[in-house]
């Protein structure tokens, strides 16, 4: 069996995926079978979509093999935004890794912060006080709304509905204002740190969030009024980009892409973290696994996130936000003036960081795109020995080839939009 890569631009011929002896193809309609369905046309035309293309939401190159207007095969060429974060993690202390995680999924940076922080905290056996956990939930759920708003705006823009885009950015800006108020930065907040938060929130935070959630449900009604029953929108999305539940799981899809196919898997429900088990929310699930179902799910998720934020604000406990363990959290500023020991701790934590015991673990959270996991290996030093990021967009994008099979080339744009990839997350 040859392992030579095919020459660039030739595409993988339909019969190049070998069947292995003794291994049955277990997906009904999975990779093996869907490739068999391709009828070899006389001549397939290969065109590049991207890397500079407004509908690829970043720098993504799709090599489409076209039979007339039909997409017969689609090869995604990724890596244009590869930054080597996993290598960089190995030369930064744990706290220094937090700003790096911001820049992976740049549409929902607090999610990455939370995933990394929870993994390190689990590795060290740290407990975060209830106030810290609730504030984390508020911040990440707001960022989930912000991320879904960008998705909704750009997805609608791709399909020709320009107004929704403006409305979505209007609401997203209010969330960014809140982020700026609590952390000083609008996008790359680094607000969630290992051991707790960057700082407690200012007193204006609660009224700001209340003002946002008070009318957000009506804003979602506005978007839905423009799209959900719009005949053009429905014609362009219903029955398009269908993927079955079994295929989606085989491709490792998660998040709305998987739930659109009817699998009720949400990490917040299945493996609750950061006190998510104390909130009431629903996990919306689709039926058909098409673009329209994924749209409905994300819109519904914005409403559910808003509900979670409401509950968390209402029940926000007092007390500290960070773990009391002084081997991880910085001492309060006031103590530095009077206590030599605090000063030493402050110095050691900022220069050297902390050293978890040797060990390895995998911890996942539900990001707007799906299961965001961190596989962390510690050798007892102050830097991660290895940190693998299980990026949801990466696995979701690998299922694109199946989703655009035999669709029209103009619809490929809609399908790419519906899986909501962030190229920073795909390439890391």
């Amino acid at each position: 069996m040859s392992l030579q890569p095919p020459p660039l631009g030739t595409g993988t011929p339909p019969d190049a995926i070998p069947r292995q002896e003794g291994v049955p193809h277990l997906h009904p309609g999975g990779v093996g079978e869907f490739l068999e369905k391709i009828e070899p046309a006389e001549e397939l035309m290969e065109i590049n979509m991207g890397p500079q293309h407004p509908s690829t939401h970043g720098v993504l190159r799709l090599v489409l093999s076209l039979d007339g207007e039909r997409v017969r095969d689609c090869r995604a060429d990724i890596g244009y935004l590869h930054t080597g974060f996993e290598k960089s993690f190995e030369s930064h202390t744990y706290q220094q890794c937090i700003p790096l995680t911001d820049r992976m999924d740049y549409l929902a940076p607090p999610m990455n912060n939370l995933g990394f922080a929870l993994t390190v905290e689990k590795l060290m056996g740290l407990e975060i006080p209830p106030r810290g956990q609730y504030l984390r939930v508020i911040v990440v759920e707001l960022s989930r709304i912000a991320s879904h708003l960008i998705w909704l705006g750009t997805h609608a823009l791709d399909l020709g509905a320009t107004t929704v885009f403006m409305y979505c950015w209007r609401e997203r800006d209010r969330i960014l204002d809140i982020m700026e108020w609590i952390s000083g930065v609008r996008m790359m907040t680094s607000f969630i740190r290992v051991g707790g938060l960057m700082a407690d929130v200012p007193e204006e935070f609660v009224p700001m969030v209340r003002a946002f959630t008070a009318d957000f449900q009506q804003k979602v009604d506005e978007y839905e009024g423009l799209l959900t029953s719009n005949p053009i929108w429905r014609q362009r999305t219903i029955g398009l980009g269908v993927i079955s539940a079994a295929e989606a799981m085989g491709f490792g899809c998660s998040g709305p892409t998987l739930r659109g196919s009817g699998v009720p898997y949400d990490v917040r429900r299945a493996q609750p973290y950061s006190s998510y088990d104390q909130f009431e929310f629903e996990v919306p699930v689709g039926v058909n696994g098409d673009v329209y179902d994924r749209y409905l799910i994300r819109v519904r998720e914005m409403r559910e996130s808003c509900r979670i934020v409401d509950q968390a604000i209402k029940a926000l406990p007092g007390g500290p936000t960070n773990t009391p363990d002084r081997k991880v959290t910085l001492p309060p500023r006031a103590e530095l003036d009077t206590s030599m020991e605090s000063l030493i701790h402050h110095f050691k934590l900022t220069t050297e960081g902390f050293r978890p015991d040797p060990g390895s673990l995998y911890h996942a959270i539900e990001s707007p795109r799906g299961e965001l996991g961190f596989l962390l290996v510690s050798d007892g030093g102050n830097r991660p020995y290895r940190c693998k990021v299980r990026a949801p967009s990466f696995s979701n994008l690998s299922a694109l080839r199946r989703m655009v099979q035999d669709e029209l080339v103009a619809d490929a744009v809609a399908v790419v939009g519906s899986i909501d990839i962030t190229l920073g997350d795909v390439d890391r």
Partner: protein
Amino acid sequence: MSPEPAPRRPRAATSPPEQGRRAGRLLKKLLPPAELGTDSEFGQLRITIPAGRLLVVASALRSDPSTLYELAVCMTCIDWPERDPRFDLVYLLRSLVHNDLAWVSVPASEETEVPSLSAIYPGMEWHERECYDLFGIRFSGHPNLTRILLPDDWEGHPLRKDYVSFGEPVAFTHNIEWALSSQDRPEYLPGATRGAVERS
């Protein structure tokens, strides 16, 4: 202040249902005891199997009604340069029916031909390409084993521990062994050869 390690803390208590226990139970029936290693850490059962058994194990884990690990979470590699075999391939598979996560680890060296799981889990195809790209692991039976994140003409596999990520070696007293070859080292430092050659 000397960089002394922090005092060891007690590990967090493992939450009651251990993850991966279903995979452990199934593989105990499937594999001879010599080929199955198990270990538990942070409430997660770690299963170690030889590379030759990977296909059998993966298709059993995916289709057996007691396990049904259908969701291909990811696969990755951990490099231990001092160890033989050098790499640990880690496969993470999730069962949504049983809400369980399997951690299957396969020790491999550079020469080991690891079978590709892309026929069983199509989602593993890209993860294996990433693993080939960044670690140089070869997967047999892979449909398209090319670099995925880095350019096709990239040299080396950056996530290996012996791949220097950036910067030029600059010699200070504490890292001179690493920064300078023994030929270039000042003769008053251990490991220098120039002075030794002149003296002899």
